[in-house]
């Protein structure tokens, strides 16, 4: 069963506009959520995370929103830049020591930012 789902396989956005990536999860034990970016032939790069005690976390152009009641999180990238073109993965983990636990990944969303 897919506990973490990214229902949009791809997203195309104009440079300078907002990119919104969505992620849904089913496991209510998840308490730590992360977003990763992946370029071809490279490993995933950590972008931003949020714990379940918060509903928003911001780091520069990246903001993650968490809606626990809906079991939904989203990543906003503002403004989008051509270098943001990559595959984005949502991931989640469960447990008090969340860093020391397995990550469950979504299937990824491919983002294309057009100049």
């Amino acid at each position, binding site marked *: 069963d897919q506990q973490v789902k990214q229902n949009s396989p791809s997203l195309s956005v104009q440079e300078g506009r907002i990119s919104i990536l969505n992620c849904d999860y089913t496991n209510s034990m998840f308490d*730590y959520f*992360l977003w*990763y970016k992946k370029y071809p*032939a*490279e*490993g*995933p*790069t*950590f972008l931003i*995370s949020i*714990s379940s005690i918060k509903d928003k976390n911001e780091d520069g152009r990246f903001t993650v929103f968490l809606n626990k009641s809906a079991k939904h999180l989203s990543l906003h990238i503002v403004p989008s830049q051509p270098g943001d073109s990559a595959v984005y*993965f949502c*991931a989640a983990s469960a447990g*008090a*020591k*969340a*860093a*020391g*636990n*397995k*990550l*469950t*990944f*979504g*299937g*990824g969303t491919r983002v294309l930012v057009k100049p």
Partner: protein
Amino acid sequence: EAGVTQSPTHLIKTRGQQATLRCSPISGHTSVYWYQQALGLGLQFLLWYDEGEERNRGNFPPRFSGRQFPNYSSELNVNALELEDSALYLCASSSGQSYGQPQHFGDGTRLSIL
């Protein structure tokens, strides 16, 4: 600061052989994780090592095993290789010291089984 390093970059084996993949974590990180990204299956958790001990294991057969050395580097061993073991194997590390530390990934080893 050096990131997570993995070797080799590519590995070609035949069915029934054994493969050994290596990972060096970020300096100061004590936890090492292994993930498999097979075609069409996404990233799947394999193993977690911390302070030299196996702490958690994903839904993989026992022929997938590994170890963590005193310097926190790690090996993943895959015995009796099967065609479906062809995949990108990613290693990640994190600091196990406090809550909410993200995992940082290497660039992976691509294992091809002929």
